[in-house]
């Protein structure tokens, strides 16, 4: 058995060693870390597809200075240790200069620590924890922090004339972060929060969670969340007869459970994508490659922009060395008009002042009704 083990391990090492250091004509390898198993799989896959579309676009245009981009996709299983395993493999064995990652802060922060230690680049497409600002020069976020989006959401609610609101969010950093910022902005404009529900994700049914919201009779409901949990949550709300309007951060990542229930009653803010020409182009490519845009979520745009800015940085720096990429990144984004609109970073590499799209769900489609830059 010892023999078999050491054999397996050695062959793994040998396999990795074959890949060796990069030469000029070699492809540039970029890592992708996403939850391909475990939970939040759909959004992760959407992000990965976005990166793939970007890679297709780059390679179709002849690559970066003649070198094609090659993606190495690793699964994080939505567990910190597996995310670290994945990042360790990408940074230490595949020696990728940069990795694009989908995952909550619980996974993103350990990987950011490792990236910092190894002097590599990590591009965040999903996590919005304020702690991510602690890795300047290592971690760059395509997604803006929750407080920005949350505040815009709160203002939008107040503008609609709503007086009372209930909060129904998952008890994650994302859900609570959005809810807090939105509630603060809403209350500053004279609104009142009448009920707050923070549910644990991963439960099959949320009827008992939504139940207490019904007697509170709010005008609007602040929500955030994605995937199967959002679908189950909306189903419970519909069955319990909630008639309030919904205000969501990134409404496209909600899984719409019943079109009629939410038609004309779901609003929200997102940054870029829907109204930008670059976003439309990505959506078209998505439709061509993945059989239509029915399941398209905003994460496609984040993934797409993530790889695009990394590629632009490599091109500008004339080198795929991580330090050069990190140095070039803040410069190239200034000139980049991407699927999620213009990207502006603060000194920590966190996205600020994103263009905000105001979105309404009408007749089964997310319609951008206004854009604030």
């Amino acid at each position, binding site marked *: 058995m010892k023999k078999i083990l050491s054999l397996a391990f050695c062959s793994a090492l040998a396999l990795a060693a074959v890949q060796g250091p990069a030469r000029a004509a070699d492809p540039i390898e970029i890592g992708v870390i996403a939850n391909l198993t475990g939970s939040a799989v759909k959004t992760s896959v959407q992000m990965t597809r976005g990166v793939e579309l970007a890679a297709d676009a780059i390679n179709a245009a002849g690559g970066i200075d003649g070198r094609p981009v090659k993606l190495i996709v690793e699964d994080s299983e939505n567990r910190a240790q597996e995310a670290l395993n994945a990042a360790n493999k990408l940074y230490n064995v595949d020696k990728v200069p940069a990795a694009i990652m989908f995952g909550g802060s619980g996974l993103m922060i350990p990987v950011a620590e490792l990236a910092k230690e190894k002097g590599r680049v990590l591009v965040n497409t999903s996590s919005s924890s304020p702690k991510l600002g602690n890795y300047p020069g290592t971690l760059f976020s395509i997604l803006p922090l929750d407080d920005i989006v949350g505040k815009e959401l709160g203002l939008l609610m107040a503008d609609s004339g709503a007086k009372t609101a209930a909060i129904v969010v998952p008890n994650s950093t994302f859900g609570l972060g959005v809810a807090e910022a939105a509630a603060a902005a809403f209350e500053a404009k004279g609104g009142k929060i009448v009920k707050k529900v923070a549910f644990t994700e991963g*439960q099959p049914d949320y009827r008992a969670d939504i139940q207490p919201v019904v007697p509170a009779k709010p005008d609007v409901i602040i929500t955030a969340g994605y995937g199967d949990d959002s679908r189950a949550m909306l189903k419970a709300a519909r069955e319990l007869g909630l008639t309030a309007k919904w205000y969501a951060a990134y409404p496209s990542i909600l899984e719409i459970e019943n079109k009629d229930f939410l038609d004309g009653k779901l609003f929200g803010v997102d940054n870029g994508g829907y109204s930008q020409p670059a976003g439309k182009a990505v959506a078209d490519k998505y439709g061509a490659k993945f059989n239509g845009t029915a399941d398209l979520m905003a994460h496609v745009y984040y993934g797409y922009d993530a790889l695009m800015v990394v590629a632009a940085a490599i091109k500008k720096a004339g080198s795929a060395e991580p330090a050069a990429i990190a140095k070039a990144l803040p410069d190239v984004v200034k000139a980049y008009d991407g699927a999620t609109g213009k990207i502006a970073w603060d000194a920590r590499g966190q996205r600020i002042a994103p263009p905000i799209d105001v979105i309404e769900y009408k007749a089964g489609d997310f319609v951008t009704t206004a854009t604030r830059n």
Partner: protein
Amino acid sequence: MLQVLLNSLVYASMIAVIAVGVALCYSILRFANFAHIQFAVVGGYLTYSFAAIPGMPLPAALALSAVATGLIAILVDFLVFSRLRDITPEGKMIVSWGVALFLRSVVAIIYGGGARVFDLSYDVVAVGDAVFTTLDALVVVVAAVLMLLLHLFLNFTRVGSGLRALASNADLAVTRGIPGDRLIKLMWFLSGALAAIGGTLLAFETRLQPNMDLIILLPVFAAVTIGGLSNVFGAVLGALILSLAQNLLIYIDFGALLGGESWQIPTQFRDYVAVLALVVVLLLRPRLSPLAGR
């Protein structure tokens, strides 16, 4: 309050249909079968697949799935458990976990990790302040009918009384000419089929996920334990008690009770009730260990 009762009844129905299978298996083979709950998930997915066949009505898909899952349970017993009848109960539990892990992963490979949902149309019915759906009503009725049929089967058929004899004293039953092996196969078929129906009902109400078994593991085992592990109808009662306790706990406004501001226990603490019920019931049951009785 009426709403709490309704919610409890619906939840208890789904748990009970799955829990009786665990009790059935425990009563005859004397081990807690983790794989049983995975049978429920497999059954749910099978119903989903059969229903996708053009022209297949949902009830037929459900029946097919029940039969198929029953056969899978027999197959698992033939391949695994029947060869391990002599090992300790805890050894069997570990093995059954292995089986569950294997099935769960295979389901995930075939269907992917994301959730699947049945696209059902149903209406919402209001009773005073409370609401329920016609689907809820269907779930409760199906569960009740199944339990009634199981009761009639176990108590008023020759095969059923054979099963009961096997459960109360396997050695004696076999020496009296009751065909033990065939009855054990029947037991597996029954519990597999029940699991499939329970799993499908759960999927109707909520969703299908490969790891759904982990979500309902505690409630199901708590229900079975409350009912007395080897008592089939105790499991039904256990499911009702547990479900009621869980829903009441999050319904009661403890803040107002204590004269303060409204404060309720967050819903996610529901599962604490299941675990606590499990522990308390186990503590209260005397003389389980060969050394007990002190």
